[in-house]
């Protein structure tokens, strides 16, 4: 016993690679899958307590302990120990006739309750999927607050213009009459040396301002840096208090001043840089230069590129700084079905933060509500704010409960304002989604659409449509969803989806042996990430938006550094370019070097990691966890063996082969790519053998000769398509697909196929499924 246990522990293997260790097991419900699939909804045995429960308890408590209206409303869910439950039934149940269910019977009833619905685990196991009441997820909360404030601050979308508005003055200050140059600068990166910006401007003393916005794609912590030997002030998302103030300069050496900001993706932020060079007594030949740089999340420092700068003006964005505990992702996607004390505390701190912010900017927030007294201004504001927060206008009862009652009871309007807003922001009507039972109205639809597409509240257009009650039929909803799909917020959400699907969020820690792979450093890794994201963005947001292209394209985005490392002829000194490569060597995401590197060891490939990834993420199949854990220890093998030979040897037992007969051929088909994703034909002095036979869930044998064969199979596999649909559904709706009907996912798959595999159209169909749920079917 102890021997087998210690062996079991000592042999813990694949946790080796932090990557697969965090792979979550999506349980795709695929029919006739020969791999063992657990059906979480199957009740396996009929317990003797069932008939007793039905006869003696169900009348008041409902068939599954849900309670019966007006008889016994409370449900029978809880966490008392089993023995206690038996005792309660024995001593007190049925009500008023406790002698009718005692001893053995009480024990059996308790057993039945425990196994089927009493505990949270039992409920999860046995109850069919349903749409669960969910609080806003962390990202939904942040976006909603930004949009709620943005409604009053008139936040709007960004246009196509890029670069920053630049003004150059022939003076130490921005003296109007000394304005000499006005133009758009694509980036801020200038070395004036000892000269002036042009010959109209004195080289000893000048002033430049750059104005505009920073276009942010990903949510996260951004570092902003200004590199210069001169003086400057820099403002970001706040026109009053500078983020960096360096008007006092010592010496004339180039230094970088940095600051960190949390920014929400899919939005733009006002920025202003005021830069100057000034005369210094008795000092000649002073130099000037300036560079505006950043370090976005998961990336390395760089000059802020033109595509992330806009010359337009942007209003403030309210980014909540309060940290929330992360969402539950135990089913493989973030959802808001659990709450905790820490979460509730965060909603309080965040609400107080929002209220402070509104009070600090009250003129801007309440300009539409100007009334004779501050009391009245605040009151009117609270009513509108509350309706927006609840995603439907207040009714009279709500006006009274959340606003009037409080304002009438307090003399100090600011305190009433704070209490009213706090009550609104702490209200379940604000914090929870999917609450309402009963008929679906246009406001429900608007809210479902915006959360499915954007993870945020309805914008003013959706709000107006809801107010006009124009969201009651599928065609109207579909039209609107089609418009919403091109919004930057949908792009942000879609990017989050691919982060998850391709495990990008977990791949920050890739580390390769520096001797074996010289040049594979953090910068290269950041470039690889960019390359993969550019490719996915390009495919998804192109006209065709073809799912299959994600797998079949032979194009790769490269910059000079990547091209040099991967030995591709390339001649674009700056930026990324899309390059077509040999179709035999590259096939979409399947062969993207970022993924191939992530799914490999420090020095060698890992066909098992790659095979498991392909099985779960790209083919949408589930894998039973291994019955026995065996560690892959490279040092235990004859060093002359190829990786394929080692893995075959390691997994040759019958028990292993139940799953590895699927995993291995998939992983082996990628053996043409080394641990950093370079194409190779030789492993350990032997030609790479990437051949294999993969058996589909339908029992069809697919012969694979390499990556392209694999990609082609994934592209046509219906099981893989259902898997993709399910992942996207989870990400967008944050509810199980089956909660919307047994066949929902299969129907969506058919629609995907019917629309030439258009991913954008799939997103629209998913939004429609969610938004129109419960509406009468089209006649």
């Amino acid at each position: 016993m102890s021997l087998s246990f210690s062996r079991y522990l000592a042999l813990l293997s694949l946790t080796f690679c932090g990557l697969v260790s965090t792979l979550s097991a999506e349980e795709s419900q695929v029919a006739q899958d020969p791999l063992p699939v657990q059906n979480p909804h199957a009740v396996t045995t009929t317990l003797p307590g069932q008939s007793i429960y039905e006869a003696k308890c169900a009348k008041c408590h409902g068939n599954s302990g849900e309670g019966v209206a007006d008889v016994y409303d409370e449900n029978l869910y809880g966490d008392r120990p089993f023995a206690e439950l038996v005792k309660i039934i024995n001593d007190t149940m049925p009500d008023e006739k406790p002698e009718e269910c005692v001893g053995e019977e009480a024990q059996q009833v308790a057993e039945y309750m425990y196994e089927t619905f009493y505990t949270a685990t039992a409920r999860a196991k046995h109850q069919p999927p349903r749409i669960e009441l969910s609080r806003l997820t962390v990202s939904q909360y942040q976006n909603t607050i930004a949009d709620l404030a943005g409604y009053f601050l008139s936040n709007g979308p960004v246009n196509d213009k890029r670069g920053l508005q630049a003004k150059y003055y022939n003076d130490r200050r921005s003296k109007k009459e000394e304005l000499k140059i006005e133009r758009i600068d694509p980036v801020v990166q200038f070395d004036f040396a000892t000269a002036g910006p042009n010959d109209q401007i004195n080289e000893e003393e000048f002033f430049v301002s750059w104005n505009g916005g920073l276009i942010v794609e990903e949510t996260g912590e951004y570092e902003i840096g200004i590199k210069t030997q001169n003086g400057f002030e820099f403002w970001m998302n706040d026109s009053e208090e500078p983020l960096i103030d360096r008007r006092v300069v010592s010496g004339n050496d180039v230094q970088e001043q940095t600051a960190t900001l949390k920014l929400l993706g899919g939005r733009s932020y006002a920025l202003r840089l005021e830069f100057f060079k000034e005369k210094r007594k008795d000092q000649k030949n002073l130099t000037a230069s300036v560079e505006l740089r950043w370090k976005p999340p998961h990336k390395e420092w760089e000059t802020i590129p033109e595509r992330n700068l806009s010359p337009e003006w942007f209003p403030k964005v309210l980014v909540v700084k309060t940290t929330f505990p992360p969402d539950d992702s135990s089913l493989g996607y973030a959802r808001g079905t659990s709450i905790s004390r820490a979460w509730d505390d965060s909603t309080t701190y965040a609400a107080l933060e929002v209220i402070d912010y509104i009070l600090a900017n009250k003129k801007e927030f309440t300009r539409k509500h100007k009334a004779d007294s501050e009391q009245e201004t605040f009151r009117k504001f609270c009513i509108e704010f509350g309706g927006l927060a609840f995603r439907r206008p207040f009714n009279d009862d709500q006006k009274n409960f959340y606003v009037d009652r409080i304002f009438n009871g307090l003399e100090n309007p600011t305190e009433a304002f704070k209490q009213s807003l706090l009550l609104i922001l702490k209200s379940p009507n604000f914090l929870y989604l999917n609450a309402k039972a009963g008929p679906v109205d246009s406001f429900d639809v608007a809210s479902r659409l915006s959360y499915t597409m954007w993870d945020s509240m309805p914008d003013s257009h959706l709000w107006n449509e809801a107010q006009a009650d124009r969201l009651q039929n599928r065609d109207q909803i579909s039209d609107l969803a089609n418009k919403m799909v091109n919004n930057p917020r949908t792009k942000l959400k879609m990017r989050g989806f691919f982060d998850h699907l391709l495990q990008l969020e977990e791949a920050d820690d890739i580390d390769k042996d520096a001797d074996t792979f010289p040049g594979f450093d953090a910068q290269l890794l950041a470039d690889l990430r960019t390359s993969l994201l550019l490719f996915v963005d390009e495919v998804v947001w192109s006209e065709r938006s073809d799912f299959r292209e994600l797998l079949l394209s032979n194009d790769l985005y490269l910059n000079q550094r990547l091209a040099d490392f991967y030995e591709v002829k390339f001649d674009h000194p700056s930026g990324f370019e899309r390059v077509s490569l040999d179709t035999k060597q590259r096939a979409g995401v399947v062969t993207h070097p970022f993924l191939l590197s992530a799914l490999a060891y420090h020095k060698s490939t890992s066909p098992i990691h790659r095979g498991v990834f392909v099985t779960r993420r790209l083919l949408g199949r589930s894998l039973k966890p291994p019955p026995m854990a065996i560690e892959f220890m490279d040092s235990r093998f004859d060093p002359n063996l190829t990786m394929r030979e080692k893995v075959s040897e390691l997994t040759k037992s019958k028990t292993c082969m139940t799953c590895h007969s699927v995993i291995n051929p998939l992983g082996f088909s990628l053996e043409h790519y080394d641990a950093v994703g370079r194409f190779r034909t030789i492993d350990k002095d032997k030609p790479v053998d990437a051949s294999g036979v993969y058996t589909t869930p339908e029992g069809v044998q697919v012969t694979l000769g390499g990556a392209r064969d694999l990609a082609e199979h994934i592209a046509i596999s219906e099981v893989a398509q259902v898997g993709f649909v399910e992942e996207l559904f989870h990400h967008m709706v944050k509810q199980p697909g089956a909660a919307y009907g047994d066949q929902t996912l299969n129907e969506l798959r058919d629609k995907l196929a019917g629309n030439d595999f258009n991913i954008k159209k799939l997103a629209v169909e998913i939004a429609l499924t969610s938004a129109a749920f419960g509406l009468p079917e089209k006649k």
Partner: protein
Amino acid sequence: MSYQTRRDFLKRAGCSAAALPFLINLPSLASDDKQPRKQRLIIMFSPNGTVPEHFWPDQTGETFELKTILKPLEPFKNRMLTLKGISNKVRGDGDSHMRGMSCLLTGIELFPGNIQGGSDTPAGWASGISIDQELKNFFQSKAETQTRLGSLHFGVQVPNRADPWTRMSYAGPNQPVAPVNDPYQMFGRLYGSMKDRQTLTSILDDVREDLNRFKGLVSVEDRHLLEQHTEIVRATEQEILASKDQVYAVPPPEFAVGVEDKNDNMPELSKMQIDLLVNSFVNDVARVSTLQYTNSVGGARMKWIGVEESHHGLSHDPDNNEESHQKLVKINTWFAEQLVYLVDQLANTKDPGTDHSLLDNTTVVWTNELGKGNSHTLDDIPFVLVGNGLDLKMGRALHYKEEAHNRLLLAFAHQMGHKLETFGKPELCTGGVLQDLV
């Protein structure tokens, strides 16, 4: 959250030291041996197993020598216990790192779930309460041991994701407690604005009514969540009520501003969190605390001690890799130094109203999710205890034979007056409280 300026921070925290109700050197707080003793417990966690041959003393009993990793604890040698031979015997779902973490303080299996760790069976959250929460509830249930917050959960660089690798404290089955990484946020929780608290108090009744009304709108299955929500609001209300009478013995620590929550700032974050922890104990805001460095499988890169590689990565290298081995010793020694900083503060701080130091009334337990990184063993889990809060016989190196750690958790409870029969999985409590500790 990061603050740009000190003013920004104080504005957000809503207070300055001057605004807090201090009672320093008042007669009522002078030595008074009649007041009941305040026992306290701190559980400090660092991940990925230790390096056994540089960690465990070779000898047992009262005469023992500290090896490299524990060397920094030399000044506390007569106030410490090393407990070798304690095993986490909880089996079932989840990989060793997950069980090592989520069963460490709960002593009970994980629920089946969908979090896949390497090649073991997937699992969900722990299926029971953890010892820190059990003791917190015990203290909070009695007027004489009640404190405003009960327990505090400090994190240092715990990644921002919730899974069985990142959580060791559980309020109950399926209810992981998130550690707070951000010292500024913790500061706000400890000393946050009095005025905001008043505003909050005036609406909490309404929030409960709101939840109650809302409950009528949702399906029967969903009410459970709202009932839980109502419970939380009620607890907040009670906590605020308790805070009305709170007086503080000492002011909050002075903080540097704008220290960002990132890997390279770990030494500074660690110090800030420890300062706050000690401060919260002096001020009797809580009597139980956890201090969690990164997470199970944690990958800190300790560049400040010359280790560029990720901790978890190194912990997998084979024993004969001397370079990695030395780095792991360095990493674990760094953690030992954090422990020393903590116990040093406790030893040098007077427990208000007594003639004793905080360390006389506090036990710090330093532990880990694994015995050793590259074998993933759950045997010989590092347990180093420092301080006299639990009234154990200190100054010894003990060596047990594969005793279930449940029995040790049970001992913690008993020594704090909570005489549980079993803790965690009852089968693992055979024999009761771990022998030879007192």
